[in-house]
């Protein structure tokens, strides 16, 4: 019940940070691009994270990365490395930094920043091709970022 109303609230206020959440502009990166503190203050839900990673309108991580755990989602891309074993290669803080803004870890990477709302050239209104009229919302919400992190943490090398 509580989760449902939180999700609803996030939708209503257009993704602006909820009380107790770290807003996109307030994310603190360390020198290697990692983000130590949970964006929500809590843990994520790995099952939902898996859904987000495989869903086109959400994380769409599989557009660029193969993820064996999501083998029943069709068409995994090759633009980025396979995410198998990502939960072993990276700490939770590093994964959070990779998701919020991967350029802080990999300078100039093609991987989009999923929790960033400014500093773009010609930002559009989602995929309409029209100019963004309102402030941008991050591609994933704070809770969704934490959910994807929880999912990635389950990806261990076989």
């Amino acid at each position, binding site marked *: 019940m509580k989760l449902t109303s939180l999700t609803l609230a996030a939708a209503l206020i257009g993704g602006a940070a909820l009380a107790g959440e770290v807003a996109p502009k307030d994310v603190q990166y360390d020198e290697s691009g990692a983000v130590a503190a949970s964006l929500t203050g809590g843990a994520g*839900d*790995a*099952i*939902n994270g*898996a*859904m987000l990673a*495989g869903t*086109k309108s959400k994380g*769409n991580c*599989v*557009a*660029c990365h*193969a993820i*064996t*755990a*999501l*083998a*029943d*989602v*069709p*068409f*995994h*891309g*090759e*633009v980025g490395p396979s995410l198998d074993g990502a939960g072993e290669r990276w700490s939770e803080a590093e994964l959070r930094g990779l998701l919020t803004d991967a350029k802080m870890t990999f300078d100039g990477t*093609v991987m*989009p*920043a999923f929790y*960033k709302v400014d500093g*773009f*050239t*010609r*930002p*559009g*209104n*989602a*995929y*309409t*091709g*029209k*100019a*963004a009229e309102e402030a*941008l919302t991050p*591609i994933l919400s704070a809770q969704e970022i934490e959910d994807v992190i929880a999912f990635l943490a*389950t990806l261990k090398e*076989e």
Partner: protein
Amino acid sequence: MTKPMGKTLTAITLAAVAFGSVASADETAELVVNGDLNMVTRTAAPAHLSDVLDEINSGWLYRKDETQSLQTDDFDNPGMIFVDLAQDEWDTVEGTEDKSCASCHDDVEDSMKGVRAVYPKWNETAGEVRTLAMQINDCRVNQMGADKWKYTGGDMAGMEALISVQSRGMPVDVAIDGPAQSTWEEGKEMYYTRTGQLDLSCANCHEENYGNMIRADHLSQGQINGFPTYRLKNAKLNTSHARFKGCVRDTRAETYKPGSSEFVALELYVASRGNGLSVEAPAVRN
């Protein structure tokens, strides 16, 4: 909201076999149209690209076998239907001056040979770089006294295709120096500028990642030697500016308008990245 994933997470062992199987394109195939028209689909990159690419590749190489084969015979190529329609248009009198294209240019096969290969091109009188579409509309308005065609519309795409067919097999050879240079530089700047909330440039996908799958799409070099292209997806001819618009939109950016000075500059630059590839229009794409 979370329903199918429990199953997914336990399906780990079904693993990697499922991926990548769509990439059945034959990147070593040779394109010969109608049994005797040999197309150059891969060749040395033009000098201005030597820092970034060794070889340039036609988008045809990245399509699946079935799509590739549709382009090898004009009877199978659905784009040729629109070329035939445009042939009728070529001979149709329209506008206040009582003229058709043929009134001034006679037989399209003679007068338009080689034209596509050098467009977009500097027009001295107008003092601007002109795309084929701009030139077509200029003729319509100033020679025929007819209405402009919509930049990416069916009439325009068809006429561009008819004119392009007269250069099929000839190497793309657009000039990038002299008076066209500043427009070319502007296009180059655009090609490397990352746009939208995904913060991606043309180069991120078509220079750094061609040959890779991005979800279900096999990334090509984004060449325009095959434009206008017939797409199976929308069953019509598609102009390069419509394609550019789609690609910019997909970065979650505000696009430019087809026919805008920005897209004209981008077209000149992208065309020049294909200098040396054969004119293929109308190419067939998925």
